[in-house]
């Protein structure tokens, strides 16, 4: 598929001219809102940047809805747990938008321990003409007031403000890895390594534990929860994935504590591929429901798998993302790359799957045509409005022109977080501290 590049390089660093990225600017999550009008990114420094799509105008038809910065705010600050002498990172692990119900936008953002509900709203009027204070805000001396007046709302420059409306804290002993808003728009769940808690969006001082896989004896711990998501259409169903490569589907109507799964999706391991690192590469890093709610995609280190909820024994489809890394697992273990958690996303019609790889490559798999493409998100290779050129990794033997050999891949440039517009072919790709937004080619 052809892609037109509309590049946005968002660099929040103070040192904009430098090429290195400060760690705080590394983007850690990307998420479109349900209409696709807004795009939120969270970074390691605890900040959230929200982009808004421009309204299309007849004057500039070629600028088809570019995304501009709408709001920036500091969502989480570094904290210190005095009891355990541990620092709590402010890195934003996940952002999830709530469906829009009024003029304001709401999103949930979470770090390792605390979830916060933020309200992003516009203000374009302000009241003027107070009686007790003057325009500067200073209190007026009541004895000087001789007449009363009614304050009037006057227009002002548009200001977008973000306010924290709820803080959901102290519910997780382990690190939160995902949040998911329920389709009932009243509840959401937060997931850490061993437990899943259900919250009501209005109530911050109580949450319900719905999954607990902590063994009585921690020595017997063999797997942890890596991701969880609510089914998009049924408010009683959710899935969670584990580090052992299995996905469990649970029904909250069955019992209050959903430790017993309703369905278990697991593929038996291929014994011919056994190695020291088999367990690591089978750990699922992301799970996403399709928009229809019938399918799931899961991402483990080397593959993306499509599962049909009606078939538990094996996945419907398996796509190799970067199988050429299979022989390099030992070096990837040494440099910690094997622990990278890649995400995967569906397109709006559930026909294409996208996920990231190394060297700033990302891959798309078309489920219908069975074609796949590798694209690169980098400044050098992409100019605005240019078409992205498909890339190819040469696995061995003769390297053709334009191909990249496995050994020259840059493993420090990884694309872990991507997002796809809910209805259009617009994708957002986070490459370390840069955000790239690509659109379909416009004829």
């Amino acid at each position, binding site marked *: 598929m052809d892609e037109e590049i509309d590049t946005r390089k968002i660099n929040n660093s103070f040192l904009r001219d430098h090429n290195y990225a400060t760690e705080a600017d590394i983007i850690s999550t990307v998420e479109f809102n349900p209409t696709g009008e807004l795009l939120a990114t969270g970074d390691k420094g605890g900040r959230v940047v929200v982009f808004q799509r421009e309204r299309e105008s007849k004057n500039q038809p070629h600028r088809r809805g570019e995304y501009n910065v709408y709001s920036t705010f500091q969502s989480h600050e570094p904290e210190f747990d005095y*009891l355990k002498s541990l620092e709590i990172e402010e890195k934003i692990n996940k952002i999830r938008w709530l469906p829009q119900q009024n003029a304001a936008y709401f999103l949930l953002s979470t770090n390792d321990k605390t979830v916060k509900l933020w309200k992003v709203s516009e203000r374009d009027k302000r009241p003027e003409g107070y009686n007790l204070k003057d325009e500067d805000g200073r209190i007026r001396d009541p004895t000087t007031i001789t007449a009363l007046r009614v304050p009037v709302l006057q227009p002002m420059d548009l200001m977008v403000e973000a306010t924290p409306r709820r803080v959901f804290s102290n519910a997780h002993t382990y690190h939160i890895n995902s949040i998911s808003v329920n389709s009932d728009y009243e509840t959401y769940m937060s997931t850490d390594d061993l437990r899943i808690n259900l919250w009501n969006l209005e109530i911050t001082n109580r949450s319900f534990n719905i999954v607990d896989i902590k063994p009585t004896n921690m*020595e017997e711990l063999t797997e942890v929860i890596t991701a969880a998501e609510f089914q998009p259409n049924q408010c009683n169903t959710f899935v969670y994935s584990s580090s052992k490569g299995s996905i469990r589907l649970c029904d909250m109507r069955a019992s209050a504590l959903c430790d017993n799964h309703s369905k278990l999706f697991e593929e038996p391991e291929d014994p011919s591929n056994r190695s020291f690192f088999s367990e690591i590469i089978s750990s699922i890093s992301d799970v996403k429901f399709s928009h229809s709610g019938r399918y799931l995609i899961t991402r483990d280190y080397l593959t993306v798998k499509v599962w049909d909820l009606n078939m538990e024994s094996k996945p419907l489809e398996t796509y190799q993302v970067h199988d050429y890394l299979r022989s390099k697992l030992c070096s990837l273990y040494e440099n910690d790359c094997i*622990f990278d958690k890649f995400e995967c996303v569906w397109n709006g019609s559930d026909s294409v799957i996208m996920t990231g790889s190394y060297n700033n490559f990302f891959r798309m798999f078309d489920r219908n045509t069975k074609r796949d493409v590798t694209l690169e998100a980098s400044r050098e290779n992409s100019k605005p409005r240019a078409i992205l050129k498909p890339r190819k990794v040469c696995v061995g033997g003769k390297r053709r022109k334009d191909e990249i050999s496995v050994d020259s891949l840059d493993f420090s440039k990884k694309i872990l977080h991507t997002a796809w517009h809910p209805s259009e072919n617009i994708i957002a790709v986070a490459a370390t501290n840069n955000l790239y937004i690509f659109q379909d080619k416009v004829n």
Partner: protein
Amino acid sequence: MEYKVEAHRIMSISLGKIYNSRVQRGGIKLHKNLLVSLVLRSARQVYLRDYYGGICLSAQQAREWCEGEYMDSEQDKLVPGSTESLPESDGQSEVAVDKGEPINVVESPASLDVESQASGEQEHAENVILDSGCSDLKTTEESPEASATCEVSNVVTTISSNCISDPSPSNPKEATETPTDCQTDDSESVEENSHKPKVPRAYTNRKRSADDSELKDPLPKRTKVISPLLISKNDENKGETEEMDTSNVSSLITIFGSSFSGLLSSEDGAQPDSEVEDSDSGQICCDQMLKNLNPWSTAIVAF
């Protein structure tokens, strides 16, 4: 052979990762540590498998020897309930060296013994022997802890293996510890191992100073994990392997030893009744590590 070298290398790397995770910002990540521990265990299994057969025999002898020597030693829960030392190469029979429980001590002699017999056997042998030695000493009462210790010991053993496998090192030291030697070392605490010198000494220097004073005397037997390692090298030195080369791995092990000791002490509510000293040292270790252990211990325990 390549597998062994590869497995050893992977074990060293894994230990390094576990160690580094302690100082990482944001606390210990349970998921990553769990995965690293799984790799560690796989590598260890491969590593030990090679030597298992050869060691069996010597292990048997070592066990008998150990039993005789340390029947009443402070053995404690460390030894995971695996009474069957030999059959299980991994896990159960592994010596729980953490805390430098007497088990360790026992093992040292056992190891030494074995060493003498099985010349040139590597750490696998060591570990196996240790296991056998330990198993005898284990008390059943501590089964829960035993499992914990077993886990730890497994890791420890691995560490030992790492240490030992260092081919070049310098250590001829393998701690050929005599039974008395075993007593001296408490990897954790004792700075000065009067009895057995160098090997433990190198490690002890790195030990937590806080507990040291207390830990030293009561339990000379707390051999640190390292000791077994040293033993492995033993081919050359049956007798007195004094020098403990402080290689990176050694120090790592030492530090792990301390951590694990702390972990165990905090994990195990009960100390073996027979070992008062152990309790004391355990307590000390516990106090030391307690505040750091919560997330850490879960990771460790998971091992």
